[in-house]
């Protein structure tokens, strides 16, 4: 038994080393000067943070980070608000055609987003939303997965509570705001983490709807950097990589447990 545990630990550590290697390698490169990168060292002789300073000075890293932050927060709020309103209607309000509308919501999950990107681009263009945070965020506010996730949670709230509140003359919205939302903190956090992660990491859509330095998100910023920089500037590129993965890694580690439960629920139900 003891021997078996040692075996498991050895496998765990080996796997962890392999999985972490690319990230650790990137971090190590980010601390090297150009000459050392070209020599192909694994670890920096004299680690320095100069590349990080350069990332902010030579490219508008701050602008990229702020844009990504604003867009990710907007989508997060939009998805949480719209999903919780819709889920509330699906669970607590009775009306004809509800089942059909719910089926249609689920059906939206079958549409690959890429199949709609050309008309969506034209829509955003005609709205004058190219290079704006609205063009980057509003198309993603409605989310079937989020509605579905919250609906599962709202269903665990006793319907009698809703009926009692109706008899007591409490408005629907009050019940939604004062009862439903406070008891659903866990799935709301799960959805928020999921929204923020996916939006921060979005690539294709920001590539289509932004073409100015002022409007770009970090993901497009790093693409610009990588294609413009000469080989000796890999250190700066890696510093930028580390800067853009820190927020999502921190969020992932903090919300991992919630996320795992939420995503698994989607898998099982």
């Amino acid at each position, binding site marked *: 038994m003891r021997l078996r545990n040692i075996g498991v630990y050895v496998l765990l550590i080996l796997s962890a080393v392999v999985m972490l290697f690319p990230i650790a390698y990137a971090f190590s490169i980010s601390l090297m000067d150009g000459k050392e990168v070209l020599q192909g060292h694994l670890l920096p002789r004299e680690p320095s943070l100069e590349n990080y300073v350069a990332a902010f000075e030579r490219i508008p890293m701050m602008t990229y980070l702020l844009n990504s932050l604003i867009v990710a927060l907007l989508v997060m709020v939009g998805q949480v608000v*719209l999903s919780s309103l819709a889920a509330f209607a699906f669970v607590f309000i009775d*009306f004809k055609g509800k089942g059909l509308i719910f089926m249609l919501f689920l059906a939206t999950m079958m549409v690959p987003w890429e199949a709609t990107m050309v*008309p969506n681009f034209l829509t955003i263009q005609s709205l004058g939303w190219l290079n704006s945070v609205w063009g980057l965020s509003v198309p993603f506010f409605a989310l079937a997965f989020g509605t579905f996730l919250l609906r599962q949670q709202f269903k665990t709230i006793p319907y009698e509570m809703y009926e009692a509140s109706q008899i007591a003359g409490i408005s629907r919205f009050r019940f939604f705001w004062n009862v439903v939302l406070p008891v659903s903190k866990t799935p709301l956090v799960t959805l928020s983490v999921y929204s923020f992660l996916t939006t921060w990491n979005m690539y294709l859509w920001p590539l289509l709807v932004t073409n100015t330095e002022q409007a770009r998100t970090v993901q497009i910023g790093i693409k610009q950097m990588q294609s413009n920089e000469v080989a000796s500037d890999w250190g700066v590129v890696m510093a930028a990589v580390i800067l853009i993965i820190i927020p999502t890694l921190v969020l992932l580690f903090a919300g991992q447990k919630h996320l795992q439960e939420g995503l698994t629920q989607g898998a099982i139900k």
Partner: protein
Amino acid sequence: MTVALPREKVRTRLSDAASGLLYLSPSIILFGVFLVYPLLRTIYLSFFRTDSQGTPLDFVGVGHYSNLFTSAAFWQSIQATVGFVLLTVPLTILIALGLALLANEKLKGIGIFRTVFSATMGMSVAASSVIWMFMYNPSIGIFNRFLEAVGASGVQWLLDPQYALLSVSLATVWMNIGFTFLILLGGLQNIDRTLYESADIAGTSYWTQLRAITIPMLSPTLFFVGIISLINAFQTFGQIDLLTKGGPTNATNVIVYAIYKDAFINYNVGSASAQAVLLFIAVLLLTWLQFKLVERKVHYQ
């Protein structure tokens, strides 16, 4: 009084419908504008020749589709997509399953390993691709330095048509492990512990338990990640754009990259729309397959 009661009922029912729709309207409007309309518009445009702005000029019927099916470039992109799917999906699931089994052991400090194994879920495709781009660098990247160290000659990982798809796939497997691992670990943790306890009492080995309990009980979750991974693989774009731009000689020109190039670089919106419709049909079939099989699973129980 006797008349007032039903009228009251009618009033509330109407207001139920109205307020139900009110709560749903933000989602319904946005789905309408950014999902239903563009989907229908894509289908419509796939039957037209358009100008560079996507304005339909003249009706060409199934012309774009028949052109695609006779075009070597289209079959090349299908081949690249299928190759990419086959190289990434099974390997990702296999590795993630192995990691999930390891991370499901009740050991001290296991939380750290769970965190590490899920890490790539927090990493964007762009950031990950840039790191792999450097690792694949022919002169200073880690792969060729390793090959040189053992006396082999270096490989043009991303420029050699023989290796490009494999290289992009390997990077993708790494990127996708985090998410797949997290789902599979969740599935493992949902398996009833008492099944293992009785198997322990009966004295069955770890591998027998794995085959007789774990894999069957995990099969719905495995199936779910299989379909999700398949659909995701069909929608791959970022790593292609950053690592190979669809090259060399279209070896990595997967379907979404082909759509992007046709629509936004060659301004051939009609043909891009036809390919988008075909992508939609492929994803639809896969999702339908999932529903069918899940349904069967439910009937079993």
